[in-house]
């Protein structure tokens, strides 16, 4: 149903942006036999009565926004790879979406172009701070746009040199923790 994991990440991040989040954390972690994909935000959250329905493909918390296929597709990927899926409120507001995928399962989609998918979303969201955390059982790597902005002052993240920096940094991070990107 979905081409690669980068598309799942894009779906989740775009949901967070539409929910008005100003802090978004993306986590990709290899934990034993599992690959944990997690996105956490401080956005508008989901009313308690709607939590059970967020994986319904014809349900959206956004009035008039049409069908919300992002989460149902991720649920499907989790189920197809023998994993699990959870959406929960985040302490202090917002939500956390966690998918555990079977990292060695033959139906696990490829990672795809995570750099090319994530960097445009990060760089073009001026009021939003992103943290990207990549890890395996031995190594952990983090990119924080807050740290990047602190060093850049007024220079926007869409400055060509910054875009190249972000792309290279994220590609290095993926390599450090042993994820194979496809560009």
């Amino acid at each position, binding site marked *: 149903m979905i081409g690669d994991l980068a598309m799942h990440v*894009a779906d989740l991040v*775009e949901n967070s*942006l*539409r929910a008005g989040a100003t802090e978004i954390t993306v986590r990709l972690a290899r934990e034993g036999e599992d690959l944990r994909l997690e996105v956490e935000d401080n956005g508008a959250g989901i009313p308690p009565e709607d939590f059970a329905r967020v994986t319904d493909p014809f349900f*959206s918390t*956004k009035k008039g*926004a*049409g069908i*919300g296929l992002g989460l149902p597709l991720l649920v499907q990927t989790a189920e197809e790879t023998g994993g699990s899926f959870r959406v929960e409120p985040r302490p202090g507001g917002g939500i956390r979406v966690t998918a555990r995928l079977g990292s060695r399962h033959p139906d696990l989609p490829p990672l795809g172009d995570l750099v*090319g*998918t994530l*960097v*445009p*979303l990060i*760089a*073009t*969201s*001026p009021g939003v701070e992103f943290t990207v955390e990549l890890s395996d059982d031995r190594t952990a790597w*983090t*990119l924080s746009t807050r*740290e*990047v902005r602190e*060093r*850049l*002052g*007024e*220079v*926007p993240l*869409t*400055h*060509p*040199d*910054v*875009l*190249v*920096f972000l*792309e290279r*940094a994220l590609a*290095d*991070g993926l390599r450090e923790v042993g994820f194979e990107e496809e560009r």
Partner: protein
Amino acid sequence: MKLEELRKIRERAEAELRLRGGPSRVKIVVGMGTSGIAAGARATLRAIVDEVARRDLRDVTVTQTGEKGLAAQEPIVEVHEPDRITIYGEVDEATARRIVAEHVINGRPLAERVVEVREVKG
């Protein structure tokens, strides 16, 4: 992450800004609401960011926004200049790259994809 690299980028960018005498010349805004994404806005945004990096456009900023109320014409791209805002509709990846090359760099809007032009009164 080599954060020291960012200090050098900042120094260079601030020197460019002083030479130019002001902030960005052009701001490009891409509609990334649900209908925009369904119509392919992800590829549009990605193409524009790629062109900005590849062509080394140091006086252009790119941002995204939500629904623009023009669902039938998504993906929507706005080019903000000091005296006008040009709104483009049905901007696929190829058109996005042409907008950067022909409008942003050469100053010739792509008339066939313009939905609206709003004059900005100083």
